[in-house]
């Protein structure tokens, strides 16, 4: 924590960056919140601990934040993966943001270039955790009707506040498909069809892109397990197409590439 504050102060004082995007204490003990330190004093409020899980990379797409000038970004692993995907998707130029990773030992690693981020991530564990896998298997094992019932109940709570979309670093479209009304792709109401279509399209638009930062599920005020939809597609995409979004700047989006011998058993 001290290390982070010192680093932030140094960067701001040296003028290397105009803002350090990090975390500070939130309303209660369970919560940390995003914090934008723009001068040396403010760096005192920076914290970094287990509470700090929001993917701050999302803010790099926000005009007001862009306007602050070059940023140093305190990155959890999900945020680092986001930077890689931003590079793939042409949303961020190299060296325009300084990534700060905090090691378990508490020391701060500066990652000024995509190459450095890629290298740093190479050492990290990949793919879904055993817990995530088990959760998928649990639902997969349910009989069709129960699976449908489970999701009907989950999605019935969706109020279409689009917190999932706003929190997702990769939902950066200036106009989301839900805002297209010619044709009206997704029913506006948070009715059963609207909620189903929204959650399907959200998951599909992230298939092969999702860096599994978990922000969507964390953001959902209704606690809907939308992350499962991302996970099931991530598992499929990696199993079928070897998709590993977020670990390199190589442009190999699973859905805009193909192999003539991609395997499937369902096409007659």
């Amino acid at each position, binding site marked *: 924590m001290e290390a982070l504050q010192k680093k932030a102060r140094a960067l701001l004082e040296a003028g290397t960056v105009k803002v350090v995007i990090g975390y500070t204490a939130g309303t209660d003990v369970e919560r940390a919140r995003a914090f934008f330190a723009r001068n040396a004093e403010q760096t005192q409020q920076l914290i970094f601990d287990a509470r700090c899980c929001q993917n701050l990379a999302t803010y790099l797409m926000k005009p007001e934040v862009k306007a602050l000038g070059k940023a140093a970004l305190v990155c959890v692993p999900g945020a680092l993966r986001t930077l890689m995907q931003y590079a793939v998707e*042409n*949303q961020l130029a190299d060296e325009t943001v300084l990534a700060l990773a905090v090691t378990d030992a508490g020391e701060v690693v500066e990652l000024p270039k995509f190459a450095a981020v890629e290298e740093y991530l190479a050492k990290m564990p990949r793919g879904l955790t055993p817990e995530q896998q088990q959760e998928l298997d649990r639902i997969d094992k349910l009989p069709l009707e129960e699976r449908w019932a489970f999701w009907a109940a989950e999605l019935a709570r969706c109020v279409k506040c689009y917190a999932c979309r706003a929190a997702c670093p990769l939902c950066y*479209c200036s106009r989301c498909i839900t805002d*297209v009304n*010619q044709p009206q*792709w997704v029913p506006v109401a948070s009715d059963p069809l609207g909620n189903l279509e929204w959650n399907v399209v959200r998951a599909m638009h992230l298939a092969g892109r999702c860096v599994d930062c978990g922000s969507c599920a964390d953001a959902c005020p209704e606690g809907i397990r939308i992350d499962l939809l991302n996970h099931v597609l991530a598992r499929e995409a990696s199993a079928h197409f070897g998709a590993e979004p977020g670990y390199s700047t190589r442009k190999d989006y699973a859905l*805009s590439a193909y192999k003539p011998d991609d395997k499937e058993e369902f096409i007659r």
Partner: protein
Amino acid sequence: MPRIGVFICHCGENIAGTVDTAAVAKNAADFPGVVHSIDYKYMCSDPGQNLIKEAIKEKKLTGVVVAACSPRMHEPTFRRACAESGLNPFLCEMANLREHCSWVHEKGEATTEKATDLVRIMVEKVKRNRPLYPISVPVTKTALVLGGGIAGIQAALDIANAGHKVVMVEREASIGGHMAQLSETFPTLDCSQCILTPRMVEVAQHPNITLYTYSELESLEGFIGNFKAVIRKKARSIDETTCTGCGACIQKCPTKKIPSEFNAQLGMRTAIYVPFPQAVPNKPVIDRKNCTFFKNGRCKLCERVCPAKALRYDQEDMLVELNVGAVVAATGYQVKDTDFFPEYGYGAHKDILTGLQFERLASASGPTQGVIKRPSDGQIPETVVFVACAGSRDPAKGINYCSKICCMYTAKHAMLYRHKVHSGKAYIFYMDIRAGGKMYEEFVRRAIEEDHVNYVRGRVSRIYKKNGKLIVKGVDTLLNSRPVEIEADMVVLATAMVAQPDAEALAQKMKVSYDENKFLSEAHPKLRPVEMNTAGIFVAGACQAPKDIPEAVAQASGAASKVIGLFSKDELSREPVVAVVSRMGPPDFSTCIGCFLCESACPYQAIEREEIKARDGRLIKTVAKVNQGVCQGCGTCVALCRSKSIDLQGFTNEQVFAELVTL
């Protein structure tokens, strides 16, 4: 408010026989936006089209739905009709009441209801159609002809004589193809080479034709009028410009025992060789696989004897890039090797030949100067059995289709044999005799009646050797399947005509389709026999299906005339069914967010990057832009775009949704 006209076609009884067309017209009249709905016997007829034209004018229609046959059949017809009365042709859609309804369902309510729905779907679509205008693209007036057989030669000469540049690519060392191997040709029995070689020379000397022999197509990119072809010029090991074709090298070459491809393995050739004496160009190549120097680094005899110092052992394959506006595929065929008929003993017995080998035996330029001799002992055969359909029309062991030319050339072979060996006996085992064609039947009758060829209707079961004779066992189905056994001195198998072994690879290179037998597919079996489904690529000769010479030549001229037609304009206009990226005023300019994930999905690399700049030159954003000349309108990018910022003209998201809302 839309003003849609609906026109239901009876197609005689074809539609009206199953669908209550009057009811459909009545239902359609009530569809929102429909102001005119009628049915008529033949919409595609002149009076039918006039009904549409008049209605467009009188009712001020903003859209037209013609419910008739498949749009793949008559869409152009009706769109033209609309255009003629001032309605943008792309405001006309067709509902497929024939192929997709009346022909496939029983007469009844459900069928009429479906017909109504099909019209409803199209009405909802056409309401959302926008006027579209053809896109014009420049045309490079150079044609690429693949293959230097008779089809390729004909096409190349026709195009070149019309004043356009032609590039001919032939994989062998000489043009001429299979026709050069033939002795006489049916039904006139005139000498094949005598009619072919002058054409070969004409190609070589034609100012508009550039000839690449011993070369192959490496890749083909681009689109109609604007292809980029890369040709691999295989290393000839000879400098063609300095070589005089004197042939000294060939005489001196120590490696003389290589079976000659041209002579169908019946004769021998050297390692440095020209395929045949009248070869064009008459410049040798070194067959590096068999050349002593290339095998063990020593020899170079040819270099020593070459007066022109034209040998280039270090020559490498060369890649030549060409811009062409059209491609004619005339890559020809192969004869199926007979090893799939072990019971016919081909290969086991020297005197069992393929049709092509017999051609070489009978040819004056062949290994025996046209004397019919047994390869085994050089004796003149007294009895020759010809087996038709050796592989063709044989789903069990061979191929399903009929090779078409065998009936005729077998008759020809028997005739030639009888002319050359008056005492000889000729038998032909056949299934049916297919002699459709000008003077063809007469030709076969001549073989039977004047040249006394014995036709035996039946299949051959086995051929084996017994004290120096080839025993041909079969049945005569005309004599109630009595077994027949003929002691022959020579057997000629009319082996099947098959696609080139690499036809599939070529098709994929050119992005054209092919059938299950790997023959290239024409765009329409009847109406577009020389075009392919990829615009700008045409087909001629036996690479499309088994053909004889007159057919191949006719198709070649057909393909040539298509190319000439295409080259008759400096610009050609393309269907505007292409993708477009949303553009709007400031502050957004476009909803495209520039992720460019569509870039790699486009099969045609049609997606480019466009920088939107402010007046002061500051970059506002970089968005996708579609090259309308390159885009073929598949719409893969449209389905991929998350923000729906890219759409496909003619099949917009709005149109498709509207179609679904009618369910």
